[in-house]
């Protein structure tokens, strides 16, 4: 195996995910299959190749630093309506600081 369940568990923690022992075994198996497959990229010599992040080269467009999207009260309400828990204009979360 190219990767152990413990390493996959560590990745899951980084990704803010959790898995049962059974799921972890299956995921480790899938990691192994996929990582073995993508290893074929190692066949290519790429030392002098530039990486591509975006296929179409665009520079970050800039605009004047002014507010362009002041929401109406109705828009603010529509945005906040999706909050799982809120109090007036705040999102409620479990206590962070003792």
């Amino acid at each position, binding site marked *: 195996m190219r990767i152990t369940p413990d390493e*996959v568990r560590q*990745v*899951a923690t*980084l*990704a*803010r*995910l*959790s*898995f049962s022992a059974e*799921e972890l075994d299956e*995921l480790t198996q*899938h*990691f192994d*299959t*996929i990582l073995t*497959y*993508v290893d*074929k*990229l*190692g066949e*290519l010599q*790429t030392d002098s*190749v*530039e*990486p*591509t*992040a*975006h*296929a*179409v080269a*665009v520079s*970050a*467009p800039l*605009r004047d630093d002014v507010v362009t999207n002041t929401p109406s009260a109705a*828009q603010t309400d*529509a*945005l906040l*309506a*999706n*909050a*799982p*828990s809120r109090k007036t204009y705040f*999102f409620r*979360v*479990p*206590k*962070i600081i003792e």
Partner: protein
Amino acid sequence: MSHHALTIHQARQKLRTREVSAVELAQSVLARVRQTDERLHSYLTVCAEEALAQAEAADRMLANGATPPPLCGIPVALKDVILAQGVRSTAGSKILEQFIAPYDATVTQRLKEAGAVIIGKVNCDEFAMGSSNENSAFTPCRNPWDTDRVPGGSSGGSAVSVAADLACAALGTDTGGSIRLPAAFCGIVGLKPTYGRVSRFGVVAYASSLDQVGPCTKDVRDCAILLDVIAGHDPRDSTSVNRPTPSYTAHLERGVSGLRIGIPQEYFIEGMQPEVETAVREAIAHLQSLGAEVVPISLPHTEYAVATYYIIAMAEASSNLARYDGVRYGYRASEVEDLGALYQTTRAQGFGSEVKRRIALGTYVLSAGYYDAYYLKAQKVRTLIRQDFLNAFEACDTIATPVAPTTAFRLGEKLADPLTMYLSDIFTIAVNLAGLPGLSVPCGFDQHGLPIGLQLIGPPFEEEVLLRAGYAYEQDHDWRTRKPPL
């Protein structure tokens, strides 16, 4: 012919001559949805009331005598990753099951301005991750040609709604083949535009350097009509390209005389379903008989495309999906002690297994110690793949290939092994990596009556060439007149 079976251009004609009203057309489509969608599961949300109100507004515009906007009264479906204000938008995920879009995506806004009637939101793989639609957190959508088979993914609902006459046309998104594969499996026309041609504002992100919105339609002319409406620069999407948009309908009938069609040897591989190869070769021969010239070409890095794609797409997905944390919107796990547990439990419960797999793998390839070996390596190979296409387009104007090595497979057939599923996209994925436009056009049926798709790939921003070639082919064939047995 029933109203619901009309193409955009046919419906437009009948609406303008008042042979049919927009309300009648919407009612016909909604009735069809009620009658058949129990078996197909293409819609996740039907907006009957809003659609009828939009249709009434369209009828008023049609009645006042002025030239109506291009999609006035046309019933359209939206993939459920595309936001429509006030309408539930789940992206096929439990984590967004209750999410009501607070604004319109730019493409939705453009459809509305063009007078379209939005029938509803259609099924897809969760967060557009999948090739079969089986990763929908709700229920898999079925192929109308054989309901034991998949419609292809991830825009399965978009393709099915069009193929089964549950919408005149639909929008999908394509990150690695997610419009073209279901279009081929369901026997409709699907286009992935050049990266940057269509705005992604208000579209739920999967892999931002690859995602693109595009049309799913009953024929090539409809595809051009829809692209005319959605294409163009949008300041709200910083990757949207600011260059003029041609009229895609204006030159459809120009023909293919003198057009150079490249045939890449790497796309006709062993293990392909023989009927697929035969149908695609016959389609190419037909274009040749119409005056096109066939040029053998090579895309030498084709075999590396799937590996490159999955590293890049998973890395981008892991970053994009970090936002689903149960704090500001979406599902939140209950009875958790602290914020860390809130994030972890919310995500563990809210995401499906394929999404979690891709987030985990994406996190891995971006993590310290593996970044260079996987992510940077894949970005470099992406350069080689793109260069292959740019070199090939020195010798040809378009490239013709199959959309997929097989016709639609059975539900469950590829679920156990993610890698086998990923390989369904072997012929579509490189197009996204290179940012090119790709068109899927029906080119026949196999012995089981399942549709086969021809893929036409073009240089950046040359959608017009693909539509012209697709149209020329389509005019001489009647595949589109065949309807699924429902």
